[in-house]
């Protein structure tokens, strides 16, 4: 009895280790479990538990130990990530079963897949929670490798090619990020002295004022390019569309919904560092430039897409560009918009990939040309997809609308010309999405009328959250976002 209460109190006082432990342990278990039903169930439960513990973070004290840190910034990310990971695991259970039936995957694959899923979760959470830049770097590398393996899961030529492209670009990105990390240490070293302290995030933040700005700039360039590769900012985005389209759909959801956020988180951490030092080259312009580039490029790329998953992968690039632009502008409104947009994008985009997964299964193809008239052939699925795409396109009452509203208005008030570019990009991307959507959803249906064997629960939950967010954001969340936005400067 007292044991349980002790555990609970321990959990509440410092849930971070637990959050990391659960997926790690589960990964080992899953590697041993042969039956895919059991492992799927285990996967879901583990993710659920992790999410619950992550909720405990909200109540937990903000602590910055030598290894782990819990501050407002990463709580946002941890809770969001564990939640999406949880819903995705639910979706993946129903999705993977179908893949097994169609024989695209073997039970062995699934065993590997589930284990990797948990490893990925653990790695991402570690990257978010670690207080040590080196550890964060290692964690992100691990996350990358696991996703590489999962992208290559189908062993088709296209899949391998995608995985390989992802792998090479990712490795270079990692290398650059490491160089940046080393530079940061070298910046810190004269100030905080030799030894591990030079990599402890909380320490760096305290002493940042005394750093040497010049070297910090160099460091930021490398970090931006290194982690920016993971975020998928143009011109470093090349791996993203193929990885999304060739891997299993749950992984596409995880990539868009989680991994991009983690990489973005890394970039933000260092932007914070830069922001807290007056003498540095402002990181804003770099972020804005890459953001706009991604937005415009993705907007145009959307028009020529023939593969439904690649289509939405490019829309992820577009939105990452928006978010980067928002943080680049900075200021309370834009940062708020950025945070909100990031949250909304993960929820919506993963929801879209849930829907797309089922669509591809019922239509038996990913080719847009063969997916038509869904609202007629599969009304529920079709309308879910319409709502989700409308949400990601920034149509109300989705939360994306609010973030885009804040972004556009605040940007135009402060830098009109850039805002015009931004609006142009938004409109171009919107047109492309609607063009594709009206073919997918309306008109005479294409063959392929298999019943959907899927649970709409994750999809529905995500969409419900997104739609409500456009109308009502709970005050604590708002206060918290505003606080973080203020931190981001």
């Amino acid at each position, binding site marked *: 009895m007292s044991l349980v209460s002790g555990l609970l109190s321990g959990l509440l006082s410092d849930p971070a280790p637990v959050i990391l432990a659960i997926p790690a342990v589960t990964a080992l278990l899953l590697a041993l479990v042969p039956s895919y039903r059991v492992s799927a169930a285990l996967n879901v439960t583990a993710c659920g538990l992790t999410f619950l513990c992550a909720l405990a973070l909200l109540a937990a004290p903000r602590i910055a130990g030598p290894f782990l840190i819990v501050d407002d910034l990463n709580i946002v990310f941890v809770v969001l990530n564990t939640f999406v990971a949880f819903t995705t695991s639910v979706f993946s259970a129903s999705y993977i079963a179908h893949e097994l039936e169609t024989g695209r995957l073997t039970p062995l694959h699934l065993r590997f897949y589930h284990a990797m899923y948990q490893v990925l979760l653990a790695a991402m959470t570690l990257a978010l929670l670690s207080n040590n830049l080196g550890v964060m770097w290692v964690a992100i590398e691990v996350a990358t490798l696991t996703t590489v393996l999962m992208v290559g899961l189908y062993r088709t030529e296209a899949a391998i090619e995608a995985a390989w*492209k992802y792998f*090479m*670009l990712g490795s*270079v*990105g990692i290398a*650059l990020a490491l160089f940046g990390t080393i530079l940061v240490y070298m910046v810190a070293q004269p100030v905080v002295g030799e030894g591990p302290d030079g990599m402890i995030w909380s320490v760096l933040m305290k002493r940042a004022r005394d750093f040497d700005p010049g070297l910090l700039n*160099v460091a930021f*360039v490398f970090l*931006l*390019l290194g982690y920016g*590769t993971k975020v998928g900012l143009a*011109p*470093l985005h*090349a*791996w993203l*569309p193929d990885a999304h389209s060739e891997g299993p759909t749950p992984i596409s959801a995880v990539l868009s919904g989680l991994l991009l956020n983690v990489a973005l988180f890394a970039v933000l951490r260092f932007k914070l560092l830069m922001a807290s030092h007056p003498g540095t*080259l402002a990181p804003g312009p770099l972020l804005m430039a890459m953001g706009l580039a991604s937005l415009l*490029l993705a907007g*145009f*790329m959307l*028009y*020529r897409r023939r593969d439904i998953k690649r289509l939405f992968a490019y829309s992820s690039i577009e939105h990452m560009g928006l978010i980067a632009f928002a943080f680049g502008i900075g*200021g309370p*409104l834009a940062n708020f918009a950025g945070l909100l947009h990031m949250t909304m994008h993960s929820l919506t985009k993963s929801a879209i990939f849930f829907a797309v997964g089922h669509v591809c299964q019922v239509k038996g193809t990913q080719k847009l040309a063969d997916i038509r*008239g869904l*609202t*007629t052939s599969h009304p529920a699925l079709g309308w879910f997809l319409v709502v989700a795409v*409308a949400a990601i396109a920034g*149509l*109300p*009452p989705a939360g994306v*609308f*609010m973030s885009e*509203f804040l972004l*556009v*208005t*605040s*940007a*135009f*008030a*402060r830098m009109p010309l850039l*805002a*015009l570019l931004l*609006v142009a990009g*938004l*409109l*171009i991307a*919107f*047109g492309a999405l*609607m063009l594709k959507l*009206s*073919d997918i959803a*309306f*008109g*005479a249906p294409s063959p392929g009328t298999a019943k959907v064997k899927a649970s709409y629960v994750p999809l529905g939950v995500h969409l419900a959250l997104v739609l409500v967010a456009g*109308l*009502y*954001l709970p005050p604590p969340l*708002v206060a918290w976002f*505003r606080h973080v936005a203020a931190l981001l400067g």
Partner: protein
Amino acid sequence: MIGASFQLFVVLGAVGVLLLLAVAGVALAGRPAGRILIYGGALAASGVAGLSALTALASAPAGLVLPIGLPWIGAHLRIDALSAFFLCVINLGGAAASLYGIGYGRHDHAPQRVLPFFPAFLAGMNLVLLAADAYSFLLSWEFMSLASWALVVAHDKEPGNVRAGLVYIIMASFGTLALMLAFGLLAAGTPEGYAFDAMRAAPPGAVAAAVVLALAMLGAGSKAGLVPLHVWLPLAHPAAPSHVSALMSGVMTKVAVYGFIRIVFDLSGPPAWWWGLPVMAAGGVAAVIGVLQALLQSDAKRALAYSTIENIGFVFVALGLALAFRANGFAAAAALALTAALFHVLNHAAMKGLLFFSAGAVLTATGTRQMDQLGGLIHRMPVTSVVALIGCAAISALPPLNGFVSEWLIFQAVLLSPDLPAWGLRLMVPAIGALLALAAALAAACFVRFYGIIFLGRPRSPSAAGAQEVDAFSRAAMIALAGVCVAAGLLPGLVIDALQPAVSGLIGHRMPEQSSVAWLSIIPVAESRSSYNGLLVFLFTAFSALAAAYVIHHLASGAVRRAPPWDCGFPDASPLTQYSAASFAQPIRRVFARSLFAARERVEMPPPGALTPARFTATARDPAWAFLFVPLTKAVGAVAERANHLQYLTIRQYLGLVFSALVLLLLVLALWT
């Protein structure tokens, strides 16, 4: 009594009901009970909202803040005279459309795609009028667009509808983005600046205000259908079910006008002297282009949609005059012009609703919208033909109906403008006046054609010959709107007085009290200057007509003999020898459209002895497509094609991109001091 807060709550309640109905529509679609419940409920809700708004016209503004929407300021809702007036207009249209829908919906083969969105559409429009902060405004605005888009693509199997929906939603989003930018300037980037009150408190500077004007014209204009942003309108309005077309054409465009008035007259501070110029120019061009295009269409609903563009042009000319007068300190004249604009808003809502209803009735009865398939319906559909005649006469601005009154008021406003100091305005206004007169005359021609081809003559197709009068609900809806047209035409003074709170709220000055004038005449400025009395003219004409009939029938012959038509001694040829829509438009096409729309006529004569019929085809193009949108889409496509190569590079080349990005940034650092 604290302002109109009670009415505000009532309207909000109605909106809530409408939203609930939208949800119910998903469940109940498919069964007739559902149809009756949804449309009946929408009718009741709109009716209640409209009536309470009517009572709110005169009472003081009332506001309310809900803890939703933009977190730190919440959703501001406010009802003042202006929004109250527009609430009356849209709920009038909404109620009529709902009533019409009860009957019309029976013929809808995909009710599950209409029933959920119809109430949502109404709710969205109501919310736009209530919203008093930028976020709620744009949220409702875009929600309205979304719902109407869903209605446009409701019949997605019919060719062209999906494309119409696509063009519509993209143009709608363009408009929303433009308004977003405008509000961005008005809010000046401060978190609390998004409330309309804050904007009023801190009006933008001269340059910013000018930009806001331009953006408002783009944003509201694209929704209202100003040339050249009108291209979606003739595609989308006909695509929707007819009662929705009536809403989109008659009502939603008015919401756009409201948005323009709210932003330009209310939020962006005192106008500069030249603001009237672009607004008037846009209006005049829209009026002429719209009506000429309407004259060239052979699809009845598309012709109506184009005529909407014309009427929006009238409204914007009046608004431009009001701006010019206001900026140059002629409050009375400004009040007159604004009144004319609002009056025309009301009129057009009624007339266009009525006409779309009758087009829908014809569609139900004959199954076609092509004028050349119709004809002779006056014999088959007595009620529809009468109300449609009233609608056509009204929209052709014939006394004693309502269309004439607003046009008359606009002309009176034009005649006041020589007092304006600025030369630009003085040179502009008469030209605009000429454009308006031309547009009005062409509108008459357009609706002679519309009515004559559809309802008169001999049926041009079996379906037209076998047409049946539509159901009672549809008839009731049409009769109601026709009643509004007649009433507003006969008693314009009452309408004008009802408009004054809104006008004085914006201008700070009002037109003289009309209801006190002897014999219900209307006197915009002074009796010696101009006056008009619709009632008297009507009675006078009716009396003379009846007197003539009486005298002739009693003193001379009243006998009638039926005989085959003489037609200069020709035998009764086939109905196809009648004038068709295209041939009726021929003179005007040759005079006006040849250069403007590149209108061409082609006649294919079969060689002597061949049995194939001779074919005549008349083609015209919309310059907005030819010169703006087609090149634009081509350009986007070209860029997309270029960019697309980036998808097919090799890994090494991608690494090259990363590498060059790195080198570039390092160079920046190296050169940056």
